[in-house]
């Protein structure tokens, strides 16, 4: 299974992550996702296969949102596990983009 898969659904870019959003993965994926965010008004991140997100992963999500906001784009994160959703809410990420639990 690839680390992530990208598809277009109803005009939105949907990125399915197939591993945890942690430092080692953020190093790899950050440059690859940049172009996707620069060329889309709606990005949906599917966390169905994500169990852990560290502070670098959170920073990566904030960077995606910052990039999208430059051209009035929106970010949505879906299928978030209970533990990760608690972490995101503690960081007030729900004030900046949409979060949906499993």
């Amino acid at each position, binding site marked *: 299974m690839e680390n992530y898969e990208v598809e277009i659904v109803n005009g939105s870019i949907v990125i399915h992550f197939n591993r945890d959003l942690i*430092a080692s993965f953020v190093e790899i994926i950050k440059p690859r996702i940049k172009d996707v965010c620069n060329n889309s008004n709606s990005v949906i991140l599917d966390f169905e296969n994500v169990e852990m997100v560290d502070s670098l992963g959170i920073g990566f999500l904030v960077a995606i949102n910052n990039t999208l906001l430059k051209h009035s784009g929106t970010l949505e994160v879906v299928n978030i596990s209970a533990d990760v959703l608690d972490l995101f809410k503690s960081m007030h990420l729900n004030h900046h983009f949409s979060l949906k639990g499993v």
Partner: protein
Amino acid sequence: MKHTLTRKFSSKFSDVDNYCDQVKDFLINNSLEDYIFSVILLLREALNNAVIHGCNNDGNKIIRSSISLAKNIVIKVSDSGNGFNWKKKIREVYQDKAISGRGVIIFKLYAAEVKYNSKGNKLKITIIKGDSDGEL
């Protein structure tokens, strides 16, 4: 059953991942599944700090870490770098749109106690067992 897991590895994120996998198995083998998320989250923050700030992303430097299970869960992390100004770091307030600076908040939210040595290259994190879900 062993109650302390100690490892020494290179200052690389791939080595951090391998060690975290070993700690996860260690917790499962000691029937501490409920603590996996908080322990691995805290451990990763400590190790990321060691790789980035302590060792300046120099993969030739060495990180040592242990996790002990007794009354409490205790994580220790030390690195062979020159340390960093943790007193300044814990005073920093992250901005909402900042892409870094949230590690300290994670320490405050998920750990009972976090202690650095004065040089800033040794860290001890304590997690109180029974503190994870508020149940009896």
